């Protein structure tokens, strides 16, 4: 993170707004950064207003709405609502369907995060070693990231299509007759593959730039100190990639939990059978298809708490092991 200090421009637009610089002389050595001071107390809030407005309108307000409607049962036709206390929550938590979806979501998230991180890292390490034609490889690998989630879901659907899908045909040679959209595990498999495939380029970009930030002389020193390339990677390169990896871990968990919605929607929409979905998809399906606003709100509140706990865990326990240079 880089902090930039706004340089006041004498007599300019900013100073007319009351943006003056009255830097008091501090004891030497004490102040490293120049402190920018505002002459009017309202001004900083004015600057913050657009950002705050966006957060309040699109995040806090819906959150409060969800929280409040999770305590009501809403009439499906919008004729009023009844306060039911915590029964929306108890209904959700003790439903076996919800429990199995929660389990699937956990497994799905773990798999997608692990696979997309490790494959992304592997590709980045390989691409980093290539000298000739490096930019072609990189462009080809990164290009996939430009595909929108529903489109990649659609492409995935075609690959796994029961009649024309090339992957399905290939697998049938080995005696595996995939039925994506009908068979629970086949669908889960296809869903995971597409979700991982979609996320690899993102991880690849970050890992590659992380690798290129490892100083050449440190690698060379390691070459003299350690013969085994694999050992060098584990003991020198990977620890230096840890900040990148931690950032990607957070991003990938969020991706697997929430951003796979588009892929899942394309894959399971209009399919008759008991297909795997994630918690987020169930929130949507119950709320907007099933018109159970209260139950869906309760689910989204639970999900919010889960993410909250997960984030705290990541920053408390994993970030500690990360070395920032």
């Amino acid at each position, binding site marked *: 993170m880089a902090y930039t200090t706004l340089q006041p421009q004498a007599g300019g637009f900013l100073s007319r707004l009351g943006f003056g610089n009255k830097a008091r002389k501090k004891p030497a050595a004490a102040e490293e950064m120049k402190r920018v001071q505002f002459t009017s107390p309202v001004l900083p809030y004015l600057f913050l207003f657009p950002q705050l407005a966006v957060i309040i309108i699109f995040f806090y307000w819906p959150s409060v709405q969800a929280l409040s409607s999770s305590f009501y049962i809403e009439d499906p036709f919008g004729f009023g609502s009844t306060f039911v206390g915590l029964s929306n929550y108890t209904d959700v938590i003790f439903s076996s369907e919800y429990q199995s979806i929660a389990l699937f979501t956990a497994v799905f998230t773990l798999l997608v995060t692990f696979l997309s991180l490790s494959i992304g890292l592997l590709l980045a390490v390989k691409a980093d070693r290539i000298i000739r034609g490096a930019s072609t490889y990189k462009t080809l690998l990164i290009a996939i990231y430009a595909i929108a989630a529903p489109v990649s879901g659609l492409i995935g659907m075609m690959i796994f299509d029961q009649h024309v899908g090339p992957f399905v045909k290939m697998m049938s040679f080995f005696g595996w007759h995939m039925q994506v959209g009908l068979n629970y595990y086949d669908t889960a498999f296809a869903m995971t593959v597409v979700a991982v495939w979609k996320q690899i380029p993102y991880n690849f970009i970050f890992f590659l730039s992380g690798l290129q930030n490892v*100083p050449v*002389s*440190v690698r*060379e*020193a*390691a*070459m*003299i*100190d*350690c*013969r*085994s390339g694999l*050992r060098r990677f584990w*003991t*020198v390169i990977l*620890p*230096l990639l*840890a900040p990148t990896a931690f950032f990607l871990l957070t991003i990938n968990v969020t991706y697997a939990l929430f951003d796979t919605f588009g892929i899942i929607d394309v894959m399971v929409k209009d399919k008759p059978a008991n297909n795997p979905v994630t918690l987020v998809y169930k929130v949507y399906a119950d709320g907007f298809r099933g018109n159970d606003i209260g139950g869906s709100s309760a689910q989204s509140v639970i999900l919010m708490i889960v993410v909250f706990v997960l984030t705290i865990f990541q920053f408390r326990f994993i970030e500690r092991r990360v*070395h920032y*240079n």
Partner: protein
Amino acid sequence: MAAIDISSVGKIYTGGVRAVSDINLDIKDGEFIVLVGPSGCGKSTLLRMVAGLEAISEGTVKIGDRVVNEVEPADRDIAMVFQNYALYPHMTVRQNLEYGLKNRKTPRAEIDARVNEAARMLEITQYLDRKPRALSGGQRQRVAMGRAIVRKPAAFLFDEPLSNLDAKLRVSMRGEIKRLQRRLGTTSIYVTHDQLEAMTLADRLVVLSGGQIEQVGSPLDVYHTPASTFVASFIGSPAMNLMKAELQGDKLAIGPSLISLNGYAPTSGAVTVGLRAEDLRVVSGDEGMPFTVEYVEELGSQRLAHGVVGDQAVTIALSGEAEITDGMRITIDPSKLHFFDAETGKRLDARAPAKAVAAVAEPVG
């Protein structure tokens, strides 16, 4: 500890760019060799070829009795100190020192003993548990040296290790490197572009230019008998004055003056003459070459007067108290003149015989 034998070594990069050509160098066991030259002269490339960080395109490098052209850097039994230290930022100082030993399966007790000894030698014992980012530049450099020392390698390779330090620290670290190398007796190759560092550290200097060796010799040899105008202008501060002159028999015409060499004539016709700033003397009267001072650099112990003789720039070194006047005249002991071929810049013969001391410089009619 081992001798290093570099024979007919050349480096051609992909694309056909030639960085180094035909280097022959016999480094004796325990010798301190300094590769010196301007940037781009191939000195670092040569060092990196010895280290195994660059492939050797031509010739062979032998460390001890073993040709190492195809040997992995880790198996060459060398340790390298890098310009920007190249410490592992995520490891403590102790882990940095241990890393190379651990990977070589050195017994734990041995590792501890060596690390503690090196730390004591370099006075970094109290920093062993710190990360490199908590150290100053000088301390990091010590750790980098410690990492090389604990390995007890056949050779140390230094790639401009002091150029990131400030001037004062550089002088003291220079002394320390010399002291350590003497004490350990490890063969060392040291790359620098700083001629002063090269002069003070080297047992033997190797002056490189354009990927080729210009001269190999002890620092004083190189200083007193530079093999070419390039070496003459590169080694020594201030640089040797190089003047166009003409030899007519045993008379040397420099600008407006004529110096008699008393029967000595290394060649005839156009020649480049080298004059060390400290060999030039100020004389009174009409003798010598007229010297017009343009500006003076005060160095405290001495003063450097920059000016012209005729239309050629000349620098002379004077004692701190010497008076500087307009219309000074300077002269030189002819035995201290260096003659170079005007075309190739190569040194001509030895210098004028000592009997030519009584030089008479007379204005050209």
